[in-house]
């Protein structure tokens, strides 16, 4: 296929060069957040199987490079609109394991006070907007936050995550077009994990790369290996920089694979086994750890320590959440309107 204007592909190889602006401490932090997502989600799966977690369980196992790599580019004042596979992005932004556990257990103290469940949360203070189920609805919202920044002449950006399936919704189109024509500092991260629930890409769209849709809006499109956390970081950082400089929005497609079911009640029997195996070999955390060890930033032993420490934090968080009070029934009536 002919190359398209303003579309960049960096999906071939695993990045081994450390992107500018990332210190060793950053690299270690990135690893920690990815690991926090993985370990917490593995724990939640167990809790779910034991019937201890309430409601459905969606994980982003295999998506950690995208969740963490993209969010790591943001500053405090920036806005983030995450989706259901991006738990790690919340950690990057200051959400704690404890509050996440409280959320999963529907506790009063959690970020939604038990009013919503699992990944459907946000945090006003952290500028993480609450996840809305309706796919793509966060895209115009992110554009609107970016519009506010523009009106106030602030150089903040708004970043929204979406899925491949999300790219079929009208709001995807309206948001990208609006952000483009008003030149808004919004960055859209599309996690192309090749399935929307049971539906493969071939039944969702007639193109190979979602990133090329940027052409329809006259904005840069980037296609990147979504299992390469440093590559995701790098292209997102570039997009964020453009956004800060007033150069408008970017659409970034991160190629990955949903290596588990859509949620824990889905056995994903419709996914070819080989496809999953292929991608499991490219696990974003394993690859990143290999790199960190090669570069002598972390050792096997240090990694085990990180794991142990996160697992302990998870133990404490779950323990705390299980004992924390539920909301009282009549509290259902509170908080519909702000004062």
């Amino acid at each position, binding site marked *: 296929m002919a190359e398209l204007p303003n579309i960049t592909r960096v999906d071939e190889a695993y990045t081994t060069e450390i992107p500018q602006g990332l210190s060793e401490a950053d690299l270690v932090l990135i690893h920690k957040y990815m690991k926090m997502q993985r370990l917490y989600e593995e724990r939640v799966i167990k809790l779910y199987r034991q019937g201890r977690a*309430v*409601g*459905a369980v969606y994980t982003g196992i295999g998506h950690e490079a995208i969740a963490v790599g993209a969010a790591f580019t943001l500053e405090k004042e920036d806005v983030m609109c995450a989706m259901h596979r991006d738990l790690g992005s919340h950690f990057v932004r200051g959400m704690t394991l404890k509050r996440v556990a409280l959320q999963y257990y*529907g*506790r*009063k103290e959690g970020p*939604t006070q*038990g*009013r*919503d*469940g699992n990944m*459907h949360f946000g945090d006003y203070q952290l500028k993480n907007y609450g996840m*809305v*189920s*309706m*796919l793509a609805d966060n895209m115009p919202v992110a554009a609107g936050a970016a519009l506010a920044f523009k009106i106030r002449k602030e150089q903040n950006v708004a970043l929204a995550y979406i899925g491949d*399936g*999300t790219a*079929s*919704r*009208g709001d995807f189109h309206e948001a990208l077009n609006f952000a483009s024509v008003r030149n808004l500092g919004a960055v859209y991260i599309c996690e192309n994990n090749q399935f*929307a*629930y*049971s*539906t493969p890409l071939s*039944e*969702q*769209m007639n193109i190979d790369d979602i990133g090329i849709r940027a052409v329809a809006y006259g904005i840069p499109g980037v296609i990147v290996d979504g299992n390469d956390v440093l590559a995701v970081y790098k292209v997102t950082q570039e997009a964020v920089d453009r956004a800060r400089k007033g150069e408008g929005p970017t659409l970034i497609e991160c190629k990955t694979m949903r290596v588990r079911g859509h949620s824990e009640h889905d056995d994903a*029997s*419709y996914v070819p086994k080989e496809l999953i195996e292929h991608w499991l070999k490219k696990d974003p955390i394993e690859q990143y750890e290999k790199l960190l060890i090669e570069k002598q930033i972390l050792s096997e032993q240090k990694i085990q320590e990180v794991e142990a420490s996160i697992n302990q934090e998870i133990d404490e968080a779950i323990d705390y959440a299980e004992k924390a009070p*539920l*909301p*009282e*029934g*009549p*509290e*259902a*009536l509170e908080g*519909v309107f702000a004062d």
Partner: protein
Amino acid sequence: MAELLYVDAISQAMWEEMERDPSVFILGEDVAHEFGGAFKITKGFSKKFGDDRVINTPISESAIVGSSVGAALEGLRPIAEMQFSSFISCGFDQLVNVAGKAYYRWGGKVPMVVRAPYGGGIHSGPFHSSCEEAYFVHTPGLKVVAPSTAYDAKGLLIASIRDNNPVIYFEHKYLYRRIRDEVPEGPYVVPLGKADIKRPGDDVLVITYGAMVHVALESAAKLEEEGISVEVLDLRSLCPLDTEMILEETSKIGKVIVLHEANRSCGVGAEVSSIISEEAFRYLEAPIVRLTAPDTPVPFSTPLENYYLPDEPRVSQAIRDLFDY
């Protein structure tokens, strides 16, 4: 006669209608192939009816509804599945402005069904538990049904498929695998616009639909022991509404509770209550009571959701209070 789960009655209705009528087809997110939909309701359909009649769509509710209208105008009978009824908001414009107005404006017939799995009680929070029926009862040109039993689920779905208008079929997720009753094999029709007395009684009339029918029946059984005779009227069809039966039963019983789990303001309960107070005022022995969810999103956490949803103790108490009025 075989007992069938509510959810299986829905599958069976579609299966039989698709066997009978080649113009019936299914479209929606994840409905096709081995997978057969988020609730597996169309499992096996692809194999039987082929890829042309069981169609996976992209996540595009507006296109799902809009293309159903187009196919219906060409004489097919699409059954569009919303994965959860909450997402019908994304196809709202096509339903209200295209499906609902085509026949009135220019005579375009739109025989289509939108299946909308709705309702709470399953710990799914604001975006997977909501009840949208009142929006569509308020909208001219759309029919709206909401079965409470497997028998009605099948008969109403067949009637909806055969109707020459757009019908929104609210199937209650909580009932899917909890309700099971006798369902004849082969096609039969529960006509749109006909309510049904699920339990006759003399003292208090509870008018309701969907999952709340079962809550009302629980209360009725319980209150029988207390010597209160409760009638449970299941509306089944919300548009057209069986005004005749509502008024007839009201005039016999004189004390009415309207019960639903949808939000309160401008809900179906408001409509039923005002019809009664307009047309059966002189038969009323007490104020009409509405028992509904409050005007909040459906909360996730168990105690909140339990408080949100009308339940047997509160329904029973309301009946007692009304009985004592």
